[in-house]
């Protein structure tokens, strides 16, 4: 085996196989113990069906027998995804779509006499607005009478966080950052309002389920003698599907009005800003763009509509939600909206702090867009210009950044509630700080506005 082959740090729990990377190419070794399940997946028509429905990533079998370890049966090369996102970066709609996709896959699998042996939200990614399952080895042969081994995991990864986001606070998706295997049901049960006990689906799959877990916590049971028939299993999946479908955000959350499209500059300035960005993107032609502070993705679309793989990051979960719903509605391609707090971006998490990669490790992008963002870093987070410049230089190779002068009403709004200690907040200080990490290529003033767009390239 070559030295530059590396096993993926998150791929160690399932003995059926694992992911490894040979330089830039991703492979999956299937172990001999999974041989018969893999054959069933491929020969029964299940793989074909799921791929047709765009619910499962495609893969190619590799002829090589140069296995990573001696338990190897086959090596496959899965379809490449440009970016891996995590459930703590998804909005409500994305987590809900991932939950429904998991159940759809399980229902389809049962029709082919197979069943999902896990139901982790990390098994799904987003491709062109749709959730897609990435773990080809999650399917096992279904034998009659067998309960769903992943029921607990499904409730922890989907039912509990979605219920908490709906009934308590959208920001509770951040519990995924603390609990590596989904939200513990006893915690969800204690946090949810008492009224949720009057909803049959949540009473059963969350509250009573949590009680049952507590009751049997130290008891061992003979699982081989405990059976449930196929109809009961389908009834369970059906009930979970109804539970997820009924979890909807209140209308007060989703009737956005003009809030997200409100700007403090004139229509002329707005059009000019769009044209400037569009032309800069055409000129540079980056393969990937990360739009930081993207709001509902209006400017991100200038990139994705030019077939550039774009990620629209924002700290406002409702803005991400609005962006996601627009992508689904219009079947948009090449745009992925994600939640991120840029002052505290996703860290490396999990076993040995390596299972889930930090934001920085998943970069850099070819281009960063930071429109109407720098004043938030500087004034709301007290970040000196030079620290912002350093951060952007770690995230991408080139940068489109908007400088917003102090007299702009958006800056004044941030200063309204605090003392102005930002005597260095000016264009010259901004340029000098960014020159430490970037070469300034272009400076373009937006018509009918005091705002300025810069194109920069990393030194």
């Amino acid at each position, binding site marked *: 085996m070559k030295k530059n082959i590396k096993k993926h740090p998150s791929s160690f729990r399932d003995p*059926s196989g694992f992911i490894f990377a040979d330089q830039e190419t991703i492979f999956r070794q299937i172990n001999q113990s999974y041989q018969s399940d893999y054959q069933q997946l491929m020969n029964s028509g299940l793989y074909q069906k799921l791929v047709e429905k765009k619910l499962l990533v495609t893969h190619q079998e590799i002829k090589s027998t140069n296995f990573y370890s001696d338990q190897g049966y086959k090596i496959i090369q899965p379809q490449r995804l440009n970016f891996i996102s995590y459930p703590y970066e998804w909005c409500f709609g994305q987590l809900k779509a991932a939950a429904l996709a998991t159940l759809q896959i399980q229902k389809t699998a049962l029709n082919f006499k197979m069943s999902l042996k896990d139901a982790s939200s990390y098994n799904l990614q987003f491709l062109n607005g749709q959730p897609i399952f990435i773990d080809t080895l999650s399917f096992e042969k279904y034998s009659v009478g067998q309960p769903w081994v992943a029921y607990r995991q499904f409730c922890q990864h989907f039912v509990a966080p979605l219920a908490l986001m709906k009934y308590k606070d959208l920001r509770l998706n951040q519990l995924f950052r603390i609990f590596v295997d989904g939200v513990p049901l006893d915690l969800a049960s204690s946090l949810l309002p008492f009224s949720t006990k009057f909803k049959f689906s949540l009473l059963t799959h969350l509250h009573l389920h949590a009680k049952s877990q507590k009751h049997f916590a130290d008891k061992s049971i003979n699982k081989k003698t405990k059976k449930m028939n196929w109809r009961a299993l389908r009834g369970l999946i059906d009930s979970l599907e109804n539970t997820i479908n009924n979890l909807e955000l209140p209308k007060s959350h989703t009737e956005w009005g003009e809030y997200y499209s409100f700007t403090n500059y004139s229509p002329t300035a707005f059009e000019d800003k769009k044209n400037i960005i569009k032309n800069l993107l055409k000129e540079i032609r980056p393969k990937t763009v990360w739009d930081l502070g993207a709001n509902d993705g209006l400017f991100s679309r200038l990139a994705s509509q030019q077939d550039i793989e774009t990620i629209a990051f924002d700290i406002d979960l409702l803005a991400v939600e609005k962006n996601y719903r627009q992508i689904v509605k219009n079947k948009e391609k090449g745009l992925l909206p994600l939640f991120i707090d840029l002052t505290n971006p996703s860290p490396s998490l999990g076993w040995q702090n390596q299972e889930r990669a930090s934001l920085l490790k998943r970069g850099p992008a070819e281009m960063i867009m930071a429109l109407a963002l720098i004043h938030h870093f500087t004034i709301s987070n007290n970040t000196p210009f030079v620290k912002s410049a350093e951060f952007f230089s770690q995230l991408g190779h080139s940068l489109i950044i908007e400088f917003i002068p102090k007299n702009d009403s958006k800056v004044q709004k941030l200063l309204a509630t605090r003392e102005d200690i930002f005597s260095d907040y000016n264009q010259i200080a901004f340029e000098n700080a960014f020159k430490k990490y970037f070469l300034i290529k272009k400076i373009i003033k937006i018509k009918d506005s005091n705002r300025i767009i810069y194109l920069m390239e990393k030194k």
Partner: protein
Amino acid sequence: MKQKSNLIFLSLFFLLVTKTAHAYLDPGSGSFIFQIIIAGLLSGAFAIKMYFKKIKKLFTRIFNRKKTDYEEEHKETP
């Protein structure tokens, strides 16, 4: 010689015995028991739902509509 035959026997044994994937995920005793109980209750509701689906399917056939993916997913047998 004996060692050799032992080795051959062991190799044959591992080749012939079908290897099965072992469930790696702990379903949790409480979750396991609970789903059996709750699914028992839900199976009745599911059976009724399927009954109505069959009636709907009959009408669909009458009107000669193309079989949809949705109906296929709701097949009653695995």
